[in-house]
């Protein structure tokens, strides 16, 4: 069971990585092309800014979910100096389970909010897409972040938070392919 959940977690992380790379690249391209068109042929894509902002919402929340997988959420390390190693064996799972509970509560609130937006039929200004589609990422991300912290709290997954906001101590692998 544990192995299956870990595999599931890794598969989700891989699809999140694929989505993030594609969406962030696309966002940069859309904003750049809109800027270049405006400055060269005096034309503008009116929908560009809205599309990029919506993609940003998705990239941010999905990125937060991947950050939980990689243990990159920020934490104050002061507790480590206060609690002994034996006590920390207890505090660490308790903090993960607490975080999971908070995330599930926010996910539940998110579902209620998104359902309400859907019922009201709100659409975006320039693209005309239903807003609930953009907002749906909020409960999705809080659910996956919550599940990852639940897994860490129960000792199934590793999702240890960090006090190193830029990952300086754990540089990403694969970036050193310089020629």
């Amino acid at each position: 069971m544990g192995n299956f959940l870990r595999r599931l977690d890794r598969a989700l992380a891989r699809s999140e990585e694929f989505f993030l790379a594609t969406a962030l690249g696309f966002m940069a391209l859309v904003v750049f092309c809109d800027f270049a068109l405006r400055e060269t042929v005096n034309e503008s894509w009116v929908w560009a800014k809205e599309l990029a902002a919506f993609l940003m919402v998705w990239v941010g929340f999905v990125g937060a979910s991947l950050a939980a997988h990689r243990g990159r959420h920020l934490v104050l390390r002061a507790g480590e100096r206060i609690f002994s190693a034996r006590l920390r064996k207890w505090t660490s799972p308790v903090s993960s389970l607490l975080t999971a509970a908070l995330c599930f509560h926010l996910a539940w609130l998110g579902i209620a909010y998104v359902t309400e937006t859907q019922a009201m039929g709100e659409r975006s200004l320039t693209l005309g897409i239903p807003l609930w589609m953009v907002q749906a990422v909020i409960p999705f991300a809080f659910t996956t972040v919550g599940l990852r912290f639940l897994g860490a709290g129960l000792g199934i997954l590793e999702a240890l938070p960090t006090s190193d906001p830029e990952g300086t101590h754990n540089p990403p692998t694969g970036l050193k392919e310089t020629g």
Partner: protein
Amino acid sequence: MIAGWLVVLVALLCLLLGVPLFGVVALLTLGLIHFLGDGFLQEIVGDMFNAVNKDILLAIPFFIVAGQVMTEGTIALRIIRVARAWLGWMPAGLAITAVGACVFFAAISGSSPVTLIAIGSALFPALTREGYRENFSLGLLPAAGSLGILIPPSIPMILYAISVSTPERPVAVGDLFLAGVLPGLMIAGVLCVYSIGMEGLKAKVRFDAVEARASLKAGFWSLMLPVLILGSIYSGFATPTEAAALGVVYALVVELWVHRDLRIRAVPKVLVEGALSMGTLFLLIVLAMALNQFLALERIPQQLAEGMQSLVSNKVAFALLVNIFLLVVGCFMDVLSAILILGPILVPMAMAYGFDPVHFGIIFIVNLEIGYLTPPMGMNLFVASSVFKRPLEQVVMASLPFVGLMIGCLALITWLPEISLWLGRFLE
């Protein structure tokens, strides 16, 4: 009211237990709205969505990606070569080269620890080889590296602008970027003068016009990135977000096809890393913004400002208090969380004492920059200790004189708003 303080107490306990910062802010937001507000928790989600559905937020991952693409490969060496050729002839030439290289690199990477790793790992052995005292180099490099967040483009400045702006009091990212330039150059200048005072008798290289030209040619494309970004913003061609996107495209073109330091199959990984850095911050941003929305609605920052004014009537005393408070905060909290959580509370207070929000932003950031050099949470101390392979205690002691210098600069920056605001007014 008691329930409100209980919520704050439980949140502090969770912080110590090791609950991630976003969880602590979530608890604060949910608890305070439940007990002190209308209890309509669902609106938090709406506030979160409205807070991040903003154009300017895109600039953060774009700047991160542009910096990451550019800092792969040989750019640090190219910048060091330029700085060495143009500054190395001065007394304490290599130390000044290190400061100059950090300033240039900071303008490209926007991150203090990354600046320290890239420039420091190449220059620490060179400084030792040329006979500079080890403790001098161990203190100088983390201090110069910390300039990363003050020299534009700077991610903490974007977050400051987002978190403290209100419809009545907008704070423009472009104004903050400009305001950081002179204080950044001033701190760099002070570090250079101190280096000359301490190590001015060290051998220097003769100025070589041929090498100076050759180094500029080799470093040209890297040095053009900050020129392009800042130039496009201040000439009015591009918004900060567009300039950041321009930076991404430019950095990719230069590293893939001009320097050829990056392979195309490594690009997705750089993009994921940029999105991940954003993801690390994102929940904290959305939840802090929802909390700020609630606090503003309840006029809590204004009440705190009035309370503070009844206790401290003098602007100088307030400036002293807020600087001490932020220096302590900088010792325990990372820069971005401190800005998101404390910015919206402290800015109305500072404005009540007559501080300009842009000037106060620079004071805020210089304080937190010093926090990179102060234990127990000084990120640059850990990075220097691990990259230079020296005990943390030695790095802490070596950094002390530089912390003193930077506190002196902070006092000047606080006392003389013109250092921060003059350039913006001049260019207007």
